[in-house]
């Protein structure tokens, strides 16, 4: 800055000095142009970017001013002034070159910095993408594994269900040979004749009844995942309370026997129904014999 001020002051002094000397005569156009050009150059970046050229311009102007003071109207004065103007313009052009060079250097540095930043960021994004991809692949593998496990579990469950159904069917077939079996809404109902199982008016199982119940129990073991209800039924003879009591004890006897044969106690219930739900008329001896019965209801699996 000081240099700029110094240059301007110096130029102004040069102009001022010669202006005073030559004030009496007309300044030629070339010299006026040279003075303006030099002032312009002095005020520009030439003072710090092309000081050598500016100095040459100053020397050229001094020469022109000297020539003018010696011979104001000579061709030499005009020639030297013309050259001085061109030298001042040359100083500005040189400053322009230096400025362009500086600007380009600064821009190149900025470009390098930006490119470095972008490259770094791109590398970071690439790493992140790779990590996300790897994570995604790991998750996909886990999902595939879980899917496989789930499929296997489902197949296993289906297999077990199919096996259970097959066992139930097999049990049903076996039971059909031992007792009356029928499918009702409440489940598979196995009806055992009471006179085969118990002595008259008692709830203790007959020895031959145990053999038969063994076979029933073996068949039921194939469906041990199902709940069972044992119901005792009587004919219409005797009081209601007696019949309820007798049918309850008979149902309990059968329940206990099934439990001793391996059926889970929690899965077997016993109810005494009494004479309330006859399957046929109690008017005949045969009808009453059919009504004295024990029903084992194998309940369906609740899905």
């Amino acid at each position, binding site marked *: 800055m000081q240099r700029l001020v110094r240059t301007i002051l110096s130029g102004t002094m040069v102009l001022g000095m010669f202006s005073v000397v030559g004030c009496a005569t007309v300044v030629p156009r070339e010299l006026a142009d040279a003075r303006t050009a030099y002032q312009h150059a002095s005020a520009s970046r030439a003072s710090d970017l092309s000081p050598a050229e500016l100095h040459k311009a100053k020397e050229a102007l001094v020469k022109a001013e000297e020539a003018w003071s010696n011979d104001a109207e000579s*061709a030499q004065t005009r*020639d030297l002034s013309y050259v001085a103007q061109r030298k001042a313009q040359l100083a500005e052009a040189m400053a*322009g070159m230096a400025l362009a060079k500086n600007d380009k250097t600064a821009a190149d540095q900025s*470009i390098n910095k930006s490119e470095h930043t*972008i490259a770094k960021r791109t590398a970071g994004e690439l790493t992140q993408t790779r990590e996300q991809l790897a994570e995604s692949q790991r998750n996909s593998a886990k999902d595939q594994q879980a899917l496989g496990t789930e499929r296997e579990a489902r197949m296993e469950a289906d297999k077990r269900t199919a096996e259970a159904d097959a066992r139930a069917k097999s049990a049903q077939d076996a039971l059909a040979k031992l007792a009356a079996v029928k499918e009702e809404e409440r489940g598979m109902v196995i009806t055992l004749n009471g006179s085969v199982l118990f002595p008259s008016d008692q709830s203790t199982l007959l020895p031959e009844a145990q053999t038969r119940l063994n076979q029933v129990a073996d068949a039921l073991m194939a469906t041990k995942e199902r709940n069972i209800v044992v119901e005792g039924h009587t004919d219409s003879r005797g009081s209601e309370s007696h019949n309820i009591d007798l049918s309850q004890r008979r149902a309990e006897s059968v329940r206990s026997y099934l439990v001793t044969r391996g059926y889970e106690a929690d899965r077997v219930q016993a109810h005494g129904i009494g004479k309330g739900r006859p399957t046929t008329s109690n008017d005949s001896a045969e009808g009453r014999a059919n009504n004295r019965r024990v029903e084992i209801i194998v309940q369906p699996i609740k899905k």
Partner: protein
Amino acid sequence: MKRLLSPLFCIGFVIVAGCAAGVSNEKIAATDSSIRAAEELGAPKVPQASLHLQLAKEENEHAQKFIKEGDTKSAEGQLMRAQADAELALALAREAPMQVEAQQEADKARSLQQQTNH
């Protein structure tokens, strides 16, 4: 007498010859060289440089004319002008592409700077 006249004659010849030669060949050659350099470095393609190149050529032609006419003083004046214009044309021819290049680099730097800010 002959011996005395001979050197004087020589000295007089040299003085006359010097005056007749007037403009030195070095000045003429330097101006031609500057004009050629400006042309070769692309001054005709840069408008402002082209103008000063044209002025330099015209001034050089005037100088040649003055030399032929024996007007040494005017010839030297025109040669000075031609030399100054040729040098300025050369500088302007060099400056223009440098400014274009600097501008292009600055634009690129700005564009990249915007990318880094996003």
